[in-house]
């Protein structure tokens, strides 16, 4: 195989970029790699940034002396053969470990100092477990694996891709990203059909995770417009993805309060000749902000967006009412929520509005497995939920459209075997502000609506 091809620059670790450091415990840490500096990993030791800059991602390193690292390849748990040993003779015994807590702490400290190798440390802990020899080979291996996770000074340099960043927040701080799980985010970008040329409208209350998704899935040919509260964007996750300036140039921000052009007049062209340097700089800064605002407003006003992505703390119906006019025909709309109830109301709204078709609520379900020869099973603890999605397609209402031929409409109360939703008239009367929102007269009405329909049709 060819080894002398130059790897793409984007796939080598660069100075000053953000990376994720994954520890044996499974925990992640985000680090910005300042050249010539040291990164502390607590009980897992420390390393120097220069030792990983310029190297590929995905490599696992071992801290073998103080701040010194070398690539590490783990022996695999699956190599263990099954034996006759059982746990029949192993009794619950808190004193199974002969080493005292202090002795272990001391060993750990010398491991961090680089005086004791972590393999020696684990060996020592294993040796001193009274019951170790009675364990099955597999459970011995499992025990060693557990101790390695605890004491091995290993870390992996992980590229902050969309998947990894999403997973990082889901594990570390899920409230920040509104509990979006990777499988749900995958579905969002798929349903939203985001590709190279997409112009995407995003309502992101996930500190920028959705914006990251929209930006990574598209290229120079595309634009992303983020609606936000207030005048200054706070999408801190963007920085983790190390986007180059030309990518960030494709991202435009617009405050909810400045959607309309009338709201824009906060900048006055003044005579710059009499300004001193400081005043001039301020003036130019304001001009730039103003020009950006005008650009964002024009982008929104141009409409015809290719996708609308929403993950917000605000009522999705209220957001849809504001933004749907800017979404092009046949384009997908994807609303995420960690709870189903807001989506129910939004789906009900969509069913009564002529602007949407095929609204669907789905729940993401994901189960991870341990895969080992002869010992494959789902993990004992799994993520309980990945949130809910409401997806729909934006359509244009054409009240003047007349069918070429049509059968007379059946009585509206005809029961349907599929139990499909009836036209929810009450909601339509109450919550639809636009008078054009007509009640769809589907012939499928649920049996449950029968009584109501009868009452109303009198």
């Amino acid at each position, binding site marked *: 195989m060819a080894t002398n091809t130059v790897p793409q620059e984007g796939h080598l670790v660069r100075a000053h970029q953000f990376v994720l450091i994954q520890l044996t415990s499974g925990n992640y840490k985000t680090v910005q790699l300042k050249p010539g500096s040291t990164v502390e990993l607590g009980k897992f030791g420390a390393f120097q940034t220069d030792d990983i800059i310029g190297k590929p991602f995905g490599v696992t390193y071992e801290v073998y002396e103080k701040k010194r690292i070398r690539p590490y390849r783990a022996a695999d748990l699956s190599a263990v053969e099954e034996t006759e040993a059982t746990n029949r003779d192993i009794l619950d015994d808190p004193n199974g470990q002969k080493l005292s807590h202090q002795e272990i702490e001391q060993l750990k400290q010398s491991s961090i100092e680089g005086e004791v190798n972590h393999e020696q440390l684990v060996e020592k802990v294993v040796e001193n477990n009274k019951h170790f020899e009675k364990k099955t080979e597999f459970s011995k291996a499992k025990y060693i694996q557990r101790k390695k996770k605890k004491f091995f000074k290993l870390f992996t340099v992980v590229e902050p891709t969309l998947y990894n960043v999403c997973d990082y927040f889901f594990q570390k701080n899920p409230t920040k990203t509104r509990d979006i799980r*990777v499988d749900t985010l995958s579905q969002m*970008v*798929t349903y939203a059909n985001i590709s190279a040329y997409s112009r995407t409208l995003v309502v992101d209350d996930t500190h920028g995770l959705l914006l990251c998704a929209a930006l990574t899935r598209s290229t120079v040919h595309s634009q992303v417009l983020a609606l936000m509260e207030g005048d200054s964007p706070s999408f801190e996750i963007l920085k983790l993805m190390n986007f180059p300036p030309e990518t960030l140039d494709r991202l435009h921000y617009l405050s909810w309060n400045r959607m309309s052009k009338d709201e824009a007049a906060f900048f006055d062209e003044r005579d710059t000749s009499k300004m001193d340097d400081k005043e001039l700089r301020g003036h130019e800064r304001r001009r730039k902000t103003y020009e950006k605002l005008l650009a964002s407003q024009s982008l929104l006003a141009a409409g015809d967006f290719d996708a609308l992505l929403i993950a917000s703390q605000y009522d999705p119906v209220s957001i849809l009412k504001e933004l749907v006019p800017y979404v092009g*025909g046949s384009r997908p709309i994807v609303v995420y929520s960690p709870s189903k109830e807001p989506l129910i109301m939004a789906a*009900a709204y969509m*069913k009564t509005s002529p602007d949407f*078709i*095929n609204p669907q*609520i789905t729940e993401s379900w994901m189960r991870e497995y341990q895969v080992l020869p002869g010992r*494959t099973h789902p993990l004992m603890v799994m993520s309980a939920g990945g949130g809910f999605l409401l997806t729909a397609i934006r359509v244009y209402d054409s009240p003047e459209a007349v069918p070429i031929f049509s059968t007379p409409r059946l009585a509206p109360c005809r029961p349907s075997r599929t139990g499909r939703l009836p036209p929810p008239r009450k909601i339509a009367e109450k919550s639809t502000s636009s008078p054009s929102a007509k009640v769809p007269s589907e012939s499928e009405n649920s049996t449950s609506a029968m009584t109501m329909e009868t009452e109303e049709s009198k």
Partner: protein
Amino acid sequence: MAFFRFKSIIEDGDQIVVYLSRDYMVPLVVDATKVYHNRYGSFAHKNMIDLTPGKKMIETGTGSGSFSHSIARSLAPDGHLYTFEYHEQRYNIAKQEFQDHGIADLVTIQHRDVCKDGFGITNEVHAVFLDLPAPWEVVASARAAFQQNTVGRLCSFSPCIEQVDRTCKALTEEGFSNITMFEVLSRPHELRQTPLPSIQAAIARHQSQRESKAIVTARRYPTEPKEEDQSSSTETTHKKRKLETGEEDSTLAGVPDKSSTPSESGRVNLTLRPLTTEELNYQYVTKTPTECRGHTSYLTFATWVPQLDN
């Protein structure tokens, strides 16, 4: 037709999807009818392999070519998909579809049995997707296909746990790391409106039915004043009259008389009156369908990590 760009006006020869109702869709080519396989939803999760524009990827087998479209969308405009199909007819159909949908320059399809002949690609791709009966047979070839000095992702899609077992073994042997396996589903929740009346409303209507029955009974057996009523029998009769007329005016008004009993002083409805719209208290709820997809396939992921010397 541009597969990656939306257009505003439908033109002759365009591939379109027609919604016959709010959730029933039929794909059509404008002019000629043609079936377009779109298992849209189930592809979402396979995208967990971090595809972005510009990346290169291998897919096998091509099958209907539907996932190829999904991949091509993510890799466009400057990435590339190499897809392999050993079934000649499927290969021909897919190849034609890539042409028709304008993605032929992004997708190279080969008629090849990769289990026997490998991919014939070295040191080039960032991701590999396997949908084969025996994925473990191509793991070594996949390893060679990865760009050797950057990190890459492999995903294998198999319905059976035994396939997963063998694939994981092969992946471990070939030096892949971070091997994980997931079962992923998207569970539909159907929206509906359901009545949610209170039990008090139910009690109330049964109560009024009982009262109607009492009136009828009282009419059928009119005289025999009861002991406690003896003291003021005239007053009771008066009360009863009032009750009868009163009920006809208010609670039972407007309800069609179906099985009422004729009497001298008017009709009394004995049927249980239906709950009013207000009492029915319609609520939006969701309900899981009777059946849903229980298993798509197991998704096995593995990472190709470049080998570094110490």
